[in-house]
């Protein structure tokens, strides 16, 4: 998946989770940049990304996510791991 495409799809998830259609994210965007980014939002982002990309995060990864850049890298790694093929995540 192209980095740009991944970015746009993740941004769409952020917009959905924070319920703001004009939200723009950057790699450095973290919880301190978005008011509502609390633990509840964190878990919503994870659930949204899992559904969108058909991947599954580990508990430690969920806890460790600090900013958009890390989030993207993790998603890209998981997509690469399965060779870009759709996988059964359950």
């Amino acid at each position, binding site marked *: 998946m192209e980095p740009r495409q991944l970015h746009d799809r993740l941004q769409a998830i952020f917009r*959905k*989770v924070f*319920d703001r259609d004009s939200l723009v994210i950057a790699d450095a965007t973290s919880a301190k940049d978005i008011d509502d980014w609390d*633990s*509840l939002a964190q*878990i*919503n982002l994870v*659930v*949204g990304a899992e*559904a969108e990309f058909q991947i599954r*995060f*580990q*508990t430690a990864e*969920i*806890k460790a996510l600090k900013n958009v850049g890390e989030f993207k890298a993790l998603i890209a790694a998981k997509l690469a791991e399965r060779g870009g093929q759709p996988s059964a995540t*359950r």
Partner: protein
Amino acid sequence: MSGLSRARSLLEGGDPVAAAAELRAALAVPLEYLEQMNAAKLAARLAADPAVAPTLTPVRLAVLGSSTTAQLLPLLRLRGFQEGLQVELYDAPLGAYPQEILDPASGLYAFKPQAALLYVNYRDARPGPAEAEAARWQSLWKALKDRAGCAVLMNNFDAPVERPWGNLEAGLADRGLGRLRRLNALLAESAGSGVALLDQEHLSAVLGKERWHDPRFWEHSMQAMSFEGLTRYAAEAAALLLAVLGRSRKCLVVDLDNTLWGGVAGDDGAAGLDLSEGYLEFQRYLKALKERGVLLAVCSKNEEAAAREPFEKRPEMALKLDDFAAFVANWEDKAANLRAIARTLSLTTDALALADDNPTECALVRRFCPEVAVVELSGDPAEFARELDRRRLFESAAVSAEDSGRAAHFQAESQRRKLSEAATDVDAFLKDLDMRAAAGPFEEKDLARVVQLINKTNQFNLTTRRATEPETRALMKDPDVRTLSVRLADRLGDYGLVSAVILRKRGACLEIDTWLMSCRVLGRRLEWFVFNRLLAEARAAGAASLVGDYLPTAKNAPAKNLLPSLGFEQDKDGRWRLELAAAKTLEVPIRNGTATTAR
């Protein structure tokens, strides 16, 4: 644009009432969790709007959770909003439900809830025998009911995926799956009377256990189940809340063409309609709803005769005309017809749900009767039953007399059997039935039923004399003939007209030409009640005696001992005779009363 976005634009455009209607329409179809969370934010804004707030009914719900409630609470408010409730919530401290319930000074009681939801999961079931654990929950229910006087909602336990004992677990009484299943059964048996049990175990099975339980989120933030599971839980809890508030839907109005069958009755004719398995399954589902007490009604754009024809000419139809409490087929608009149906059934329109395949009709009803729950059937008829069932519109908190409904004969019958088992003393049993009977001369309006009884009754029939309708009508006009038709009802149901007698005056005798009774009501002492009436008739006719015959047939043995058991004696001609001077009325467990409507 999604329904949710449209609702948001309408609100921002200054039309909160239309926004609320749009949001409710959007909630009628399955929405994923994140969309529901956003819908919940919108619902909260709408619920606070001065134009919408007065249309909502406030209700105070306490949530006693043993896991995180942060996502559950907005979802509960959302589902309440969908059904016209303004849900005020008390969020008890996490895991503190025993203290909250047992301490009369707790925040729970200060909140004065109308309903309390025990939001628990399998981790809350303490080890040990299921009986002891069930008793612990029952005592919590009791304390809650006694102290708060509120309705109690609690879910049963959602068995986990993992089974350390493997397949053996199903058979274990004191641990694992076997124990949990037993505990769930015990809780289900003891619920009712103020406690409504939410079948979380079923919900988890419907979704699939591996999708329901997400151990990662339990570790991360004590989420008892996946969010996908949680949305289903919230919808189910809201349906039960409505049920305990008495706001579940009471009547389902269905369309006909492309809903109960494929095709258009007016064009294709009864013979040309598609009654494939999908439509029949849907009909069977509706029939099951009707049997548990949900009223069914038809509202169809059709000529009345064309709409009825498939019911009359297609025997494979699972639904019959008499399954419907109202049948409206015309070319009026559906909103007006729904109001008329509600009036006919003495309901308000907010007790109605409509299932219809036509998006335009659905939209019209949402617009003009927003209080009606609209189930827009789409796509595959094989999935209609599931689409309707998913809405949880007819939830009830407990099986009750009203729930079994006026036409719920099946249920009444099984209850009657249960009573019969419990009451070993027949007199007490019959008395407990609270039977009411009414007897009077045949009337024109009952003639069809009387003639049917005369020509069909084989068992409890003294003489098995048949008569046509004109012959029976002639008897009604004959000055020497007296007739009696008898209706019976009890507290479990109405049997309608079940017995008929024809008497003929011959000199000083009143002769029993015909005496028959439907075998559905054998063993109720209704024949004694009728006997008392015979004595009265004989006296009124100035007769000195009653005389009757038993004419044996292959089938009428049940009537053989009727006359001797009532004190009749056989005379030299072999006829049964009773002198009125010596006759006494019998004590019967049946009141004189208007047995309500005929069946």
